[in-house]
């Protein structure tokens, strides 16, 4: 079975999940003709229908030379996901500048083919320090300072 048909089945499941979520909404007893459940129900049913529709008419396969047919570099995608998750986890703890330096530096290493450890490190430090200064001093938007105060 073609991948897109699996996607279509996944969409049907999303629709079922959405309808289940709609079921959890307490229908209010006010005079209103259309309660808070009406639209969510309609959307859930629509999602299921769109999945069935896609299953029936999946369309042509992408051309072999289109970017959609490129086999993906799953390792890089996974590493990127890990770096962002780690960033969110340590963000408040270690402070904006340190966390963001690690994100910028680590992300660039994952995405790049060749390593520029020093150059990327310098860019990462300068950029995150600049952002921190601009936001906290000029725009007065709080960013987590961390134990070191930046």
């Amino acid at each position, binding site marked *: 079975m073609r991948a897109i048909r699996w996607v279509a089945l996944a969409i049907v499941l999303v629709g079922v999940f959405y309808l289940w979520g709609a079921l959890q*909404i307490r229908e209010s007893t006010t005079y*209103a003709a259309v309660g808070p459940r009406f639209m969510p129900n309609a959307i859930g049913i629509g999602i299921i229908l769109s999945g069935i529709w896609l299953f029936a*008419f999946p369309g042509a396969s992408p051309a072999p030379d289109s*970017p959609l047919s490129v086999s993906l570099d799953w390792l890089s995608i996974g590493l990127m996901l890990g770096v*962002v998750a780690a960033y969110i986890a340590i963000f408040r703890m270690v402070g904006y500048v340190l966390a963001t330096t690690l*994100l910028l530096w680590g992300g660039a290493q994952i995405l790049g083919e060749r390593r520029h450890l020093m150059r990327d490190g310098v860019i990462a430090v300068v950029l995150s320090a600049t952002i921190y200064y601009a936001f906290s001093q000029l725009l007065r938007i709080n960013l987590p300072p961390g134990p070191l105060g930046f």
Partner: protein
Amino acid sequence: MFGGDIWANLVSGFGVVLTPQHLFFVMLGVVIGTAIGVLPGIGPSLTISLLLPVTFGLEPISAFVMFGGIFYGAMYGGSTTSILVNTPGESSSVVTAIDGFQMAKKGRGGAALATAAIGSFFAGTFATLMLMLMAPLLVRFALQFGAPEYFALMLLALSAVTGLAGQSAPKAFFATLLGLGLGMVGIDLQTGQARFTFGNLNLLGGIDPVMVAIGLFAVGEVFWAAGTLKRTFEETVTLRGSLLMNREEWQRSWPAWVRGSVIGFIVGVLPGAGATIASFLSYNAEQRFAKGKAELGKGAIEGVAGPEAANNASAGGALVPLLALGIPGSATTAVMLVAFQIYGLRPGPLLFQQQADLVWGLIASLYIANLALLVLNLPMVRMWIKLLDVPKPMLYTGILTFSLLGVYADTQNTFSMVLLLLLGLLGFLLRRYDFPLAPVVLGAVLGPLIEQEFRRSLAISVSDYSVFFTRPLALVLMMLVMMSFLVPLFNAIWKASRRRASVAAGTVGEIED
């Protein structure tokens, strides 16, 4: 609102904008917009989304004149990379790459950039003029609209997007519903019931459509880059020759500018179509009418002049329904609608009456933005090209950093960053399987509004559903909605039956989709 008023209003609009501070923001918008347009992977909707938290401290008018500059600037900036790198910065510049890159290879890259810049100026000015003339007329008409008409109009905008976005109707249909579905999350304003929050207090306020835009477009793009960056190859051409067009190139360019401007504006006004479709239609028109049509595909200047004019004109056209009706027809105008809401403004007929300064100041600033594009961009083109030297890995990681910063600055909690990451993964998957992203953003913005108008209509009619079909204007709109749903459906069935017929006949050949 009569003809004379328009010019008086425009003069007062210029009076509002011609202050050093506002001029600065127009210029800033144009420069940022162009830079963003040059850089791959980030478009105007994303730029405006990322800038929203930074603009909170500004007066609304400063923010909106800047957004206007970004909108036009981004449309223009996409052409530079199309021509010189064969990598369109935006989807609306894809066609520009066909002939633009061939021209650059022949050493006429300078002329291609010039015709794109002058054509963009011409088209943007034309579209702003049309916007100025049309919007007040539409406003006068729209003052008679009630809730059923607004409901039908929004439904039409959504169904048009569904019908026009991408190749596959079921994929676009799902994308729209997904957006509407995300828009339902949070407290229901009419009854106070929590919806789809699953006990998480952070979700009570709903999912900000701006976050949806940033997640799908920016974070999704970064994951996409992680998966593909090491496997793709780019050919770059250095800019040779003069930036001036010769006589023949001028003569071939201007008819294409005119055609592109008209096509682009009309397409821009229609919901759902937008800059990409405008540029493709303009290219089709050039294939039919251009003097050098035989050369198209091999470096004809019309193939750059027409589409580049068309995408700028469509930007102006898209502002007509946004400003006059309060109904966005694209991801960019949807994000601009959210920006208006953040400032407590509701675009539409009342905005023209209550905030005339703001509306006319915005329109005046669009003229200035176009002029600024022309004055700034041609001399600065060599600097824009330098932007392409930014290493891609750093560029994408930087986009990621700014996206996370944007949502954190807005909400001050890390939950929003988790949500952003999830939306980014969603965007990546949608992209992988070729689903259109714009309808998701549009749906997330319009979802709560459309529900509100729906309930309001039924409250007026005391639960009588015929209210959508007994008012003449609502009826016409509803019929258009049904048509836009049925046409792609019949199309798909017809195609499938033809396919079966041809398979049965033993002619297993190429079937165009």
